[in-house]
């Protein structure tokens, strides 16, 4: 009996250090289940009875499914993205719809027109552009002077 007691104490100490094997824990559980426990060790009866009782508690049916359901990301319809896409489409559409269309008797079509070169020689073309820029420059300065003088 004393031997059994000392074995149990040794096992208990091992148990508190969390070093017991499953087998040893089974021995402890069986020992404390018996009412004939050594009086010194009887306070542990209630504790082991409690462990056994708690070990028997099973999760309610469907728990795993509920957990999986709550942690699986659900793909909601993204209204933000939808709104952004719609806004861009409206913007693009308005570019075409709101661009002023030519109207009136002397206006021409808006089709992109190919410009036919007057000159074949880039030097001559540059001379013409240069002349025109100087005329524009002169007029710009004249206009600015008039604005300043007003």
């Amino acid at each position, binding site marked *: 009996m004393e031997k059994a007691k000392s074995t149990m104490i040794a096992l208990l100490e091992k148990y508190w250090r969390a070093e017991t094997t499953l087998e040893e824990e089974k021995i402890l559980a069986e020992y404390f289940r018996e009412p004939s426990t050594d009086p010194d060790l009887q306070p542990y009866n209630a504790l082991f009875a409690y462990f056994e009782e708690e070990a028997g508690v099973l999760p309610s049916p469907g728990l795993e499914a509920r957990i999986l359901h709550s942690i699986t990301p659900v793909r909601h319809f993204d209204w933000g*993205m939808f709104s*952004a*896409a719609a806004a*861009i*489409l409206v*913007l*693009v559409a308005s*570019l*075409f719809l709101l*661009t*002023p269309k*030519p109207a*009136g008797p*002397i*206006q*021409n*079509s*808006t*089709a*992109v*027109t*190919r*410009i*036919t*070169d*007057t*000159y074949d020689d*880039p*030097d001559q*073309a*540059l001379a*013409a*552009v*240069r*002349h*025109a*820029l*100087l*005329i*524009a*420059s*002169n*007029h*710009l*300065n*004249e*206009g*600015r002077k*008039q*604005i300043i003088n007003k």
Partner: protein
Amino acid sequence: MKRIITIALMVIAFANLHAQDDAISRFFGKYLDDSRFTVVSVSPRMFRLMSKIQWDSIPSDLKQTVTRLQSFRIVSTETTPYTFYKEAYAAIDKKEYEELITVRENKDDFRFMIRATGNTIHELLMIAVDKDGFTLMCFVGDIDLDKISRLAADLDIKGMENLKNAKRK
């Protein structure tokens, strides 16, 4: 989402290309085939060819202005200039072209109009009239008005008068 943005940008780019057509094409196309008008055109292709020119002797403001241009056109006539001027001015879409400078002396007028996005000027349109004639001048590209203003200051003003006369030839 990325795909939508890419498509939108492509469409906007296409719309911009469409907008590259100058005012002369859009509002005054019929003048181009009218024998009463003199037309001078320099196409984007020709502007690209100009890169082969010897630019050493060209003033830097002029070089920088020209290299940023895409196309240029002048349409002018000596026939009923005031009538054409009035008709042409009425035809320009004022929502798109902002009036920059207007100078009026008796019956002689000239106006500068620009088409711009933010601070970037894409087109400079000059429309001018005096008793000798009516002129529409259109520059398309990335236009720097300050640089253009400085071009005349770099030349002597005598030369400018000769240029003005040369235009009418």
